[in-house]
C-alpha cells in the first residue's frame, strides 16, 4: 500500500509564507478532506505538493513511498504517482486531451490511451466530443472539472490532490464525479486529499479524515463528524471572524 507523508511543510507564494507547518499522512485508499476559509492556503498547499514553479517549499518534506519529492520538478512528482486536479484548470490552445495524455503515458499504446479515455468519460457522463477539444478550451467551469477527473482516471496516480473539484459542478455531476473518485480508492488504491467547502462532497467521497486549515496550518483533524460541526458553527471556533477571510 502506498504512503504519502507530508512533514513540517512550509511554503511561500511570491514573497509571502502561506503554508506554515503542515503535517499529513495519507495511505493508499484513504480519503482526507481539507476544509478552511478562503485564503487559508489550501490551493498553495496543493501547488506546493505538486511543485508549481513560484510556490517555494522553504522547509519540510513530502514523500511518496519514501521518495522525497521536495526539490523534484512537477513532472517528476507526477511520475512518482502524484496528481493535482487544479482549482482553475489551464487552457492550452491546440493541445488535444488525447495528445497530452499519450505524451504523459509514453510507453502505453495509443489505442490503450484512447480506450481508457472513452471509458473514463463514459463513467462520469463527460461528452465524448470534448475529448477531441484542445485542453480546457471552450469548456465551461464544470466541464473543466470533469476533464480533470477524466485525466485522473486515465493516469491512475497513487495520490490525487483535488482542489475544489466540486466547484462549477451541478448536484448530479458532483455525485457522479465523487463516486468515480471513491471507486478509484478501491479500484487501484488511490489516496485522496480533497479540498472542498461542502459536506455533501465529503459524504459522497466517504471521507476517512477531515482537516481544518486556518492561516497556513491544519489546526484540527478528526472524522467526518468534524465537517458536520463546521457546517453548523463555521470557522469561528478557530479564531476566524465571519466575513474576515481573504477573497481567494
Amino acid at each position, binding site marked *: 500500500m502506498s504512503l504519502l507523508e507530508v512533514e513540517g511543510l512550509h511554503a511561500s507564494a511570491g514573497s509571502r509564507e502561506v503554508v506554515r507547518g503542515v503535517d499529513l499522512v495519507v495511505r493508499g485508499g484513504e480519503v482526507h478532506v481539507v476544509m478552511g476559509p478562503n485564503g487559508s492556503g489550501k490551493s498553495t498547499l496543493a501547488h506546493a505538493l505538486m511543485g508549481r514553479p513560484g510556490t517555494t517549499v522553504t522547509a519540510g518534506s513530502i514523500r511518496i513511498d519514501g521518495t522525497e519529492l521536495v526539490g523534484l520538478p512537477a*513532472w517528476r512528482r507526477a511520475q512518482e504517482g502524484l496528481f493535482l486536479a487544479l482549482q482553475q484548470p489551464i487552457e*492550452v490552445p491546440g493541445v488535444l486531451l488525447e495528445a497530452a495524455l499519450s505524451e*504523459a503515458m509514453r510507453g502505453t499504446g*495509443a489505442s490503450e490511451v484512447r480506450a481508457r479515455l472513452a471509458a473514463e468519460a463514459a463513467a462520469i457522463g463527460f461528452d465524448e466530443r470534448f475529448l477531441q477539444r484542445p485542453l480546457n478550451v471552450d469548456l465551461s467551469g464544470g466541464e473543466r472539472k470533469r476533464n480533470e477527473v477524466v485525466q485522473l482516471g486515465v493516469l491512475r496516480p497513487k495520490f490525487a490532490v483535488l482542489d475544489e473539484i466540486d466547484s462549477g459542478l451541478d448536484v448530479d455531476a458532483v455525485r457522479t464525479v465523487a463516486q468515480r473518485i471513491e471507486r478509484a480508492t478501491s479500484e487501484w488504491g488511490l489516496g485522496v486529499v480533497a479540498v472542498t467547502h461542502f459536506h455533501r462532497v465529503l459524504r459522497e467521497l466517504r471521507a476517512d479524515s477531515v482537516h481544518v486549515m486556518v492561516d497556513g496550518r491544519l489546526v484540527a483533524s478528526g472524522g467526518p463528524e468534524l465537517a458536520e460541526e463546521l457546517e453548523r458553527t463555521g470557522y469561528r471556533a478557530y479564531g476566524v471572524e465571519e466575513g474576515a477571510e481573504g477573497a481567494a
Partner: protein
Amino acid sequence: MSSFTVDRAGALGGPAWLKRRRTGAFEELAAMPMPSEKEEVWRYTPIDELALDEYAPSDGQPLGPLGSTFLNAVVADLPERAALVTVVDGRLVAVERTGLPASVRVGGVDVLGDEEGALGRVLAGGDALVRLNDAFHPDVVIVDVPARVVLDAPVVVVHWCTTASAAHGGPDSTAPTDGWPASFPRTMVRLGAGSSGQVVEIVAGAPGAGHGLVVPVTELSAGDGSHLSYAALQVLGTDAWHLSRVAAVAGRDATLRTFTAGFGGAYDRSRTDALADGTGSSTELRSAYLGTGSQVHDVRTLQDHAAPRTTSDLLCKGAVAGTSRSVYSGLIRVRRGAVRTNAFQTNHNLVLDRGAHADSVPNLDIEENDVRCSHASTVGPVDEDQRYYLESRGIPPTRAEQLIVLGFFDDIVQRSPVPTLVPRLRREVRLRLVDALVMDLEEADRDRAEKEASESG
C-alpha cells in the same frame, strides 16, 4: 537597376495592352523611390539592404528535378483539386483541369483576351515593388469563375521560384549571368456573383541556401454574394527574399477569407490588404509565421471598411526562435459611411529563444462613430501556467514546450479557409520546429506506431 531595363520589360510576351502596361509601369518605377525603413510600412524591416542591381529578372528556367519532386509532393498532399497550375518564375508551365466546370477559366493572361483594365483593378497604384512586378511579371495566372458556380475543390497554383547558390556567372551557376534570379509571380482571382471557390498558392524554391528575390502580387475579387477562400503558403529556401502583396476586395454580402503562411526566406514579408467594399460583406484574415535561424518575418495587414454593416476578423500567430525576428503590423481602417462596422484584430507571438524578438504594432484609423473595433496582442515566451499544467501530468519540460508550441500553431493552421491544406501546413510547422526546438517528434510517432503495431499483431 542595371538588369531591370525598359527593354527587358518590353521584351516580355503577351497581348499589346499588357506590353503597354509593363512599359508604363517601368516609367513610373523609374521615377519612384525604393521602399525605405524610414517609412512606417517598412519599419523594423531589413528593406534598406535590398540592392536591386544585384538581381536580374529570371528569364525562364525549366522546372528541374527539385521542382518536380516538390510538385509531386504537393499533388500527393492535395489530392482533391479543381485544377493544378504550375508556374516557374512567373511563367505558366502547365494547367491541368480536374473536374473544373467548363465555364470556369483558368490559365495565363490570354484568358483575359483584350479585357484591358482587369489587371490592376483591385490593386491600383502601389509602391515601387508593385510597379516592379507590374513591369516584369512574364505572365498572369488567371482564375476566373463566372456567376453562380460552386467549386468544392481548390484551384492549386504552384509557383516554383529559381534561386542560385553558386556565385553568379560561375560555371555551376543556375543564375543568369547578370545577377541573382528575381521572379515576379502574378495572379488574379475573380469570383462572379453568388459563386464560391477556393484557391491555394504555394510559393516554393530549392530548400537550403540559395539567393533569389521573389515579389509576388495577387489580386482577389469576390463578387456580390460570393464566397472566396484563399490560402498562400511560402516555403522558399533560407536565403531568398520574399516580398509579397495580396490585395482583396469583397462585394456586397460577399465573404472573403485569406490565409498566409510564411516559413521560408531570409526576409519574408507578406502584406494583405482586404477591402470590405460592398454593404454586408465580411473579410477574414489569418496569418502564421515561424522564424528559425536568423530569419525575418514581416506581416502587414489592412482591414479596410468602405461600406455599412461590414465585418473583418484578423488572427495572426507566429513564433520566433534562434535569432530570428518578426514584425506584425496591422491597421483597421473604417472609412466615413462604413457604419455598424465590426472589426477584430488579434496577434499572438511566441518568443522561443533569448536571441529572438517579435514586434507587434496594432493601429486603428476610424472615421465613423457607430462601429465596434477591438485589437489584442501578446508577445512572450511559452506560458508558465500551460507548461506547469502539462508537467503536472508527468510530461517532461521539453516535451511540454513542444506540445504547447505545436498546439499554438495547430490552433491557427486549423483555421485555414482551405481545409485540405491543413495537413501540409501542419507538416511544414513540424519540420521547422524540429530545428527550433530540437524535437524528436518523428521518433516519438514512430515509437508509438510500432508499439501499436506490435499490440494489434
